[in-house]
Structures are given as structure tokens and as C-alpha cells.
């Protein structure tokens, strides 16, 4: 079929690395965890880290938001990453002779190394610190990103074959020219942004004043940092928040976060902010520091209240000091976390051009600096970038370096448009299903140490959450060649999606399609299929489970029973286990509304002695109407079997709840089928 679908799922479009969120979430929903993980890893070398601290542009774009809440895509990624699958990455199609030098073993540098190796290049990574990870290691506290998770990601990258040289600072220990002389054909500068910005207020040099980034680094690297009782953290970003929460864990009793705008404008993550509030961080908003007091050490902080004026260049409302609003906070420690800038002086001396903002100047598409063989990315060009942005830079630079080395023109990737938001009438037709809550350490225990706060989804919760995905832009498509213009799809769709365009003959199935499969089954011309590559409507699964039938002994008869099981049911795991224990072949489908009568008949053709459909109770279903359609097809097929003279019991419909009743009905059913004997008397 050659059908174009206009637009892509917004979660995929919104992601800087175009991570196929929908696809891995859909696979997760079908419990195909390994394949889901490989999809994640194919574009993202930091699944465990990203699954924890990503800024989740995908969730902001999630169309489920207009129904209830976005799908917890990030946490689902984490669930997959925590399963510890071995990445299965494609071998490079060709080995190239060139070696690339990467400066900085942070996420941008490591991502570039990952991509370059997969493209067929050798890489050497130069890192100033003793351990790789960059800001992920030294700037993100362990309670958000445990070392083990970070190490897992990094080890997976390094095991591909990148060489890591630590303790070397390029520009200081070795110059760019040295690198060229050593034979590196290209250099990627991913030095990050580690130089803290200053407040420029009196008293900033006093002991007890420390930058947020330094504070966090010392905690990680063991620099002997201490905090006293009362801590003021200045800033509203993630570093400020992390410093505040870390300070609490270091023993501070009273931590205030001072931010000059209101909560609304805070750039930090909402989830983290809520967690910080729970932990007891005080948010002193619309406040700016004016002076730090103290003789040998900090004793107080003079602040001024602010009000918000007209929006500035960043679109946020500009804070204006309120005259006569000054007040003093009694503090022992002041942590300044108002941003960082890259250390570029040395690089500048090496001939790299620096922008007015103090970042490395690059071409936004090729990531090339003013020196053709030198590329740059990550925080060194974006300042306070995000992890996923750094990965994107790494991936993109790797491609660009490949093009440069091969003398090819860099192809600017074509941006796919996201599909539109759900239309309000559709929103009404889609079932509300609450977002799963992340299990967390209780507040009392988590502020005592740096143990991870978010505990991760257990399997059932992850699967349930994944099933909330609306499978955007992967719904049904009509093949106009096969379409008989019968209008069946238009008439059966529970969501009123298919429309005949004015003057047209073939229905257009718009992006609001929910992938329930009702039209696919009902289409008499076989013209509709689901764009979703992972949906087999039970057909292929049936073939694979039936392929495992052992040869039937003549003396011992055990019936072959096939169960078609609704994956959307929360009980499906227990149920499918119980079925397998009973020797029943299980075919899981994402909603029994996807079962075609011909598939049920096929089961019998493949020597099933009985077929049982296990669907959730009407009302429990992800697709409410799916239940009704499935039941109709069940009845339709039952009539067929009746005409064959097959016993009615051989096609059953069981509800998985209440569980006890289900187990009882199931064993009765199995007993009955045993008594009936085989469908075919095969000699």
C-alpha cells in the first residue's frame, strides 16, 4: 500500500531527537518490552538518564492532554531502560579510516561518539574530569539520577568502541592544532557550560557563598562541601532547585529558594518543583538579592521585592523592583544558581570564534564552527540546554561530520508537521483514563539521603499507562484502490472519524482515529488497515502460537484451545498466565474489537478444538464500543460454527472478572472441551 499520512504524532515531532515515543509506548502497551527498548535506544543513547530527567517536550505536546492528562512517556522510557536489555544496534555498514576527536564526555559528546561509531568512524573522547558524564554526573544530584543509571547509559556507549581519555583539558593540555597533527580529521567541541554566572552584588566573595554548580559538583566528587542551618538558593532553574534539594539532604534545616519572578515563569521542571515543595523548600518569589552580609562568613541576605512589568525579549514579564520593599533574611549559606557559561577563553586562543553571548559560534544546521573541521554542540552553544537537546546536537553533529568527511552536502532534515489537536467533539467520545502516579519515597525518608526519589513504574502500572496512548497518526488508512465506496467505515466508526470529502468517493480517516480497528474488521473490501506497524489484529500471533502445536498422540488427547485475550484489561497478565498454565494458546490483541471472524475461523482451520474470547466487561474497555462490535462478530462466527454442526461450546466468551468466577468458568470450559473430543477425527 502506498498511502501518505499527513502529519506525525506530536510527541515525535516535539522531541529534539524525534524519538518514536508513540511506537515504543504502543509496544510497551503490548508488553513487547525488548522491541520497545530497542526503538528507544536506536535514537537515544541515554535512555536511563533521559527516562528520569528529560524535560518531556513530548508530554507537553501529547494530544491526550485535551482528554485528561498526557501519557507519562518519560517514565515509560525509564521503565524500559531499567529492564537492562542489551542494546541491539546495527553494525556500521562500512568502516571509514578517519578518527574523530570529541572534546567533553558529557551527553553531547557521548551521543556524537555513539552516532559516529554506528556510522563507521573511530572516536577518541577527551575529558577534563576523571569520570565521563559531564553535567549529568556533576550537575544532577543522585536522588534524581542515580549513578548506576548514568553509568549504564555511558557504559553502553563506550562499549561500542569509543576511546575515553580523562584528565585532559583541550586548549590547556593539548591544542586543536595538536589534535590535527595527531591525525584527527574532525573535532567536536562539547565542552559544556560549567562556569557559574555571578550576581555582581556586594558580599559575593564571602565564605559561605557558593555557586550552585560548584556545590553540586563537590557533593558528587566529594569536595568536602558543608551547609549550615539556613540556606538561601538564588535562581529558578533546575540547578537552583537541585542545589536547594541537595542542601536539604546535606542537613540544612531551612532552605529558601529566591526567585525574581513568580512561580509561573520558573524555568525548572514542574514535577521537581512539586517534589521540592513537598520536601519543605520555601519559595521566596518576586524577590531579588541586593547584598550579602557578614564579616568572616555569611550572616544575612538583603532582598528587594519585585513586581512584574511588560514582557521582555524572552516573553516572560520583566521584574521591576518595588521601592522601599527591602528586607533581610538570616542565612548562613548562599548558593548562587543563576546560570552558567562555557569556558571558552582557551578555545578562543586556539582560533575558535566566540559569540557575543560567550558561546561557541556555529552554523545551526551543520554544527560547524568557523574552522571547517571543528564542530561544536551541547551546552557550549546553547548555554542552559537540556539533556535531550545535547543528545540531538550529538546525533546531528555526527551526521554532519560524516558528510564533511565524505565530502557530501549536509541535508537539512525535513520537518514533519504534527497532526492537529483533537477536535472537541472527539474529546467527548474518548474515554477518560487517569494518568498513573509515580511511586515515590516518602518525604520524611527521602530528605535524609540521596536515594532516588522516584521509584519507577512496576510492570502493570507501566503497561496500563502505555495503554492510554492514543496512537496518534498511526490509525486506520484506506487504500483507495481497494475501496468499494461502501461507506461502512463511515457508518461503524465509534468516533465518527471517516469522512467522505466533498465530491470524493473514498473516506478520509483523519488523525483523530483511535486505532480501535472496528472499520478494519468491518470493511468488506479489505481496504482498510492500521498504519501501526506493530498491530497484527491477532493474525500473525495466531500463526505463531499455532505453529507450536505438538504432534497429537492417538492415545492421549489434549484439546487445542486458543484464547483471544484483550490486552487492555488490567487483569490480562494474571489471566494469560492462568491460560498458559492450562495449556491454552494465547493470542493477545489490543482490544478484541480487532478480531475478524475469519481469524476466529482460521484458528479452527489450524486445528483448534475450541476458541475462547476473553474480553473485559463492557464499560471496562479502553474502546467502549469495541466490546459491542466484538460481541457481534462473536455471534456472527458462532452462527457459522453452528452451520458446520460444531458444538456451540467450542466458541466461548468469558469475562476475566471477577477472577474467581473466571477461573471456575475456565476450568469448566476446558473440561467440557475435553469431553467433546477433537473437532477433526484425524487418523
Amino acid at each position, binding site marked *: 500500500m502506498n498511502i501518505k499520512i499527513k502529519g506525525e504524532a506530536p510527541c515525535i515531532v516535539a522531541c529534539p531527537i524525534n524519538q518514536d515515543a508513540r511506537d515504543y509506548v504502543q509496544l510497551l502497551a503490548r508488553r513487547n518490552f525488548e522491541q520497545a527498548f530497542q526503538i528507544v535506544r536506536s535514537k537515544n543513547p541515554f535512555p536511563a538518564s533521559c527516562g528520569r530527567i528529560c524535560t518531556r517536550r513530548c508530554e507537553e505536546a501529547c494530544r491526550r492532554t485535551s482528554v485528561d492528562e498526557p501519557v507519562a512517556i518519560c517514565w515509560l522510557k525509564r521503565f524500559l531502560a531499567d529492564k537492562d536489555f542489551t542494546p541491539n544496534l546495527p553494525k556500521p555498514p562500512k568502516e571509514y579510516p578517519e578518527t574523530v576527536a570529541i572534546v567533553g564526555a558529557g551527553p553531547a559528546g557521548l551521543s556524537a561518539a555513539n552516532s559516529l561509531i554506528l556510522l563507521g568512524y573511530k572516536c577518541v573522547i577527551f575529558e577534563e574530569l576523571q569520570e565521563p558524564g559531564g553535567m549529568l554526573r556533576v550537575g544532577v544530584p543522585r536522588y534524581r539520577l542515580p549513578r548506576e543509571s548514568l553509568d549504564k547509559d555511558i557504559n553502553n556507549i563506550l562499549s561500542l568502541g569509543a576511546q575515553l581519555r580523562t584528565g585532559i583539558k583541550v586548549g590547556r593540555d593539548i591544542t586543536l592544532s595538536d589534535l590535527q597533527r595527531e591525525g584527527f580529521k574532525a573535532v567536536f567541541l562539547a565542552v559544556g557550560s560549567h562556569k557559574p554566572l555571578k550576581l555582581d552584588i556586594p558580599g559575593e566573595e564571602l565564605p559561605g557563598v557558593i555557586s550552585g554548580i560548584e556545590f553540586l559538583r563537590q557533593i558528587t566528587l566529594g569536595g568536602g562541601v558543608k551547609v549550615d542551618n539556613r540556606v538561601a538558593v538564588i535562581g529558578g532553574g533546575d540547578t537552583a532547585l537541585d542545589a536547594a534539594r541537595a542542601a536539604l539532604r546535606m542537613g540544612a534545616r531551612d532552605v529558601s529558594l529566591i526567585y525574581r519572578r513568580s512561580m509561573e515563569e520558573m524555568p525548572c521542571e514542574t514535577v521537581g518543583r512539586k517534589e521540592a515543595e513537598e520536601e519543605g523548600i520555601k519559595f521566596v518569589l518576586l524577590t531579588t538579592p541586593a547584598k550579602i552580609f557578614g564579616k568572616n562568613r555569611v550572616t544575612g541576605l538583603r532582598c528587594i521585592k519585585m513586581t512584574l512589568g511588560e514582557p521582555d525579549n524572552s516573553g516572560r514579564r520583566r521584574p521591576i523592583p518595588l521601592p522601599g520593599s527591602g528586607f533581610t533574611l538570616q542565612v548562613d549559606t548562599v548558593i548562587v544558581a543563576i546560570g552558567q557559561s562555557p569556558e571558552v577563553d582557551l578555545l578562543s586562543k586556539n582560533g575558535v570564534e566566540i559569540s557575543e553571548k560567550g558561546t561557541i559560534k556555529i552554523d545551526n544546521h551543520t554544527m560547524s564552527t568557523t574552522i571547517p573541521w571543528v564542530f561544536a554542540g551541547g551546552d557550549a552553544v546553547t548555554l542552559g540546554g537540556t539533556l535531550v537537546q545535547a543528545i540531538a546536537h550529538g546525533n546531528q553533529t555526527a551526521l554532519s561530520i560524516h558528510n564533511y568527511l565524505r565530502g557530501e552536502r549536509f541535508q537539512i532534515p525535513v520537518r514533519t508537521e504534527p497532526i492537529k489537536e483533537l477536535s472537541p467533539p472527539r474529546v467527548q467520545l474518548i474515554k477518560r483514563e487517569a494518568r498513573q502516579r509515580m511511586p515515590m519515597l516518602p518525604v520524611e525518608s527521602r530528605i535524609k539521603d540521596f536515594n532516588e526519589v522516584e521509584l519507577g513504574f512496576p510492570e502493570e502500572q507501566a503497561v496500563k499507562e502505555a495503554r492510554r496512548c492514543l496512537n496518534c497518526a498511526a490509525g486506520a488508512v484506506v487504500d483507495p484502490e481497494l475501496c468499494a465506496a461502501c*461507506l461502512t467505515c463511515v457508518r461503524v466508526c465509534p468516533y465518527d472519524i471517516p469522512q467522505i470529502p466533498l465530491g470524493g468517493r473514498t473516506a478520509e480517516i483523519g488523525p483523530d482515529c483511535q486505532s480501535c480497528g472496528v472499520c478494519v474488521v468491518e470493511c468488506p473490501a479489505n481496504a482498510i488497515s492500521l498504519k501501526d506497524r506493530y498491530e497484527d489484529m491477532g493474525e500473525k500471533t495466531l500463526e505463531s502460537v499455532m505453529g507450536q502445536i505438538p504432534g497429537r498422540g492417538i492415545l492421549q488427547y489434549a484439546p487445542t484451545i486458543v484464547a483471544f485475550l484483550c490486552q487492555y484489561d488490567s487483569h490480562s497478565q494474571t489471566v494469560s498466565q492462568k491460560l498458559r498454565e492450562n495449556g491454552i494458546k494465547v493470542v493477545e490483541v489490543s482490544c478484541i474489537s480487532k478480531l475478524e471472524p*475469519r481469524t476466529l475461523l482460521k484458528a479452527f*482451520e489450524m486445528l483448534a478444538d475450541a476458541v475462547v474470547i476473553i474480553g473485559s466487561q463492557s464499560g471496562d474497555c479502553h474502546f467502549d464500543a469495541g466490546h459491542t462490535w466484538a460481541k457481534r462478530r462473536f455471534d456472527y462466527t458462532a452462527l457459522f460454527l453452528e*452451520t*458446520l454442526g460444531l458444538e456451540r461450546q467450542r466458541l466461548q466468551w468469558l469475562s476475566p472478572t471477577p477472577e474467581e468466577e473466571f477461573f471456575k468458568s475456565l476450568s469448566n470450559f476446558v473440561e467440557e472441551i475435553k469431553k467433546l473430543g477433537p473437532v477433526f477425527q484425524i487418523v
Partner: protein
Amino acid sequence: MIVARPKSFEEIIRLIQNYKKVAVLGCGGCVTVRSIGGQKQAEELASLLRLWAKRQGKDVVVTEATLTRQCEPEFVESINDRANDWEVVISLACGVGVQCLAERFPRIKVLPGVDTIFMGATIEPGLYWERCVGCGECIVGETGGFCPVARCAKSLMNGPCGGSQGGRCEVSPDTPCVWQLIYERMEQLGMGEELDVIRPPKDWSVRPQRMIMEHLRKVDSRQ
């Protein structure tokens, strides 16, 4: 569109029980649109026949195929190669399609898998209703757009009969009295007086009818 209904399975197996090579042929025309004889229904019937044969211990090869339209010689031709392998063909097309197959393949036993019932419209999803009998002399222009030949149980030309009650037909209370509809529409159109004129007996012409469109016929280029 032509509306048909599936024949009973008993009837089908009675007709094919002595054959070993059976084909079920769907039609991509009207019967597909009505979900009666399209590809899926052909697959279902074929599946059912295989199950039946297996249960009977019979060695029967059942294949299925769906033609774009069984009432066109060019489309029927498309199965020419495979047809040699078949002894019997069950056509899920209307009575027209099944006869086209029978004419094209004189050596094969061609059976109808459906009963063709009428030409009708979709009134609502899953509800189809007869609207035309192809009588060859359309008078709906004079009867308010409703056909009394197809829609009056007695095909009255000067209705309604005495059984019209509350707008319903005496033969089936589910059926509207078409003469009531005609009366209302004609009054609405200001043409009510036309109903006072006696309509003469209808000309039930010779059947089968044949129609020739001279301008569409083949041109012999040798002439």
C-alpha cells in the same frame, strides 16, 4: 445497488458435496458494498468449507478470489488461468454475476452462494429497502418521486387500496404505504389533481430485456 442475502450453508454443501476442487468467488461490486459477497465473505465461506470438508474427512481444495465485478467480461477473464483447477465455483455475486461466470466457463459447475433479492437503497446502516424492480417504464415523475410498482405490495397504478391505514401498508406494518407518500408529495408539489386522472394499465413488456447502445459498440477496424 443490488441487494442479496447469503444462501444457507446446508444448501451450499448439498450442491458441492461431490466435488474436490472448489472456488469461492467474491465480487467487488454491489455485494461488497453490502458486506455479503466481498473478499472477506469469500474468505469466511472458504474457511467454513475447508472446516466442513476436514470434518467430513473429505479431501477438498477450497480456494478463494474476488473479482472486481463479475458482471464484466474483462474482469471475469482475470481468473481464466486458475479456472482450470476448479470443478465447481460458488459465486457470491448477484444473479447477474453468477450467470456471467457460468457463460464464460461452460465446463465448470457454477453455483450461486447468495440469493439476489432486490435493487434497493441504504435507509440506515444495515437496513436496505427495495426501490426499483426495473420494470422498464419509469413513472416516478408522475408519482411524486415514489415508485408504486416497486413499493406498493400490489403495484397499484391507482392507489391507495383500502388497506392503507395510518400511512402503513396492510401487507407489512413496517412498510410505509407508498400511495400515502405519493398523495402527500403530490399535494405538497401542488400536483394533487394529477392523481384524479385514471392511469391506464401498465405495459409489462417482453422479458428478458436487451439494451443496445450503438455508439458504444465495437468498431471493426478492417471495414
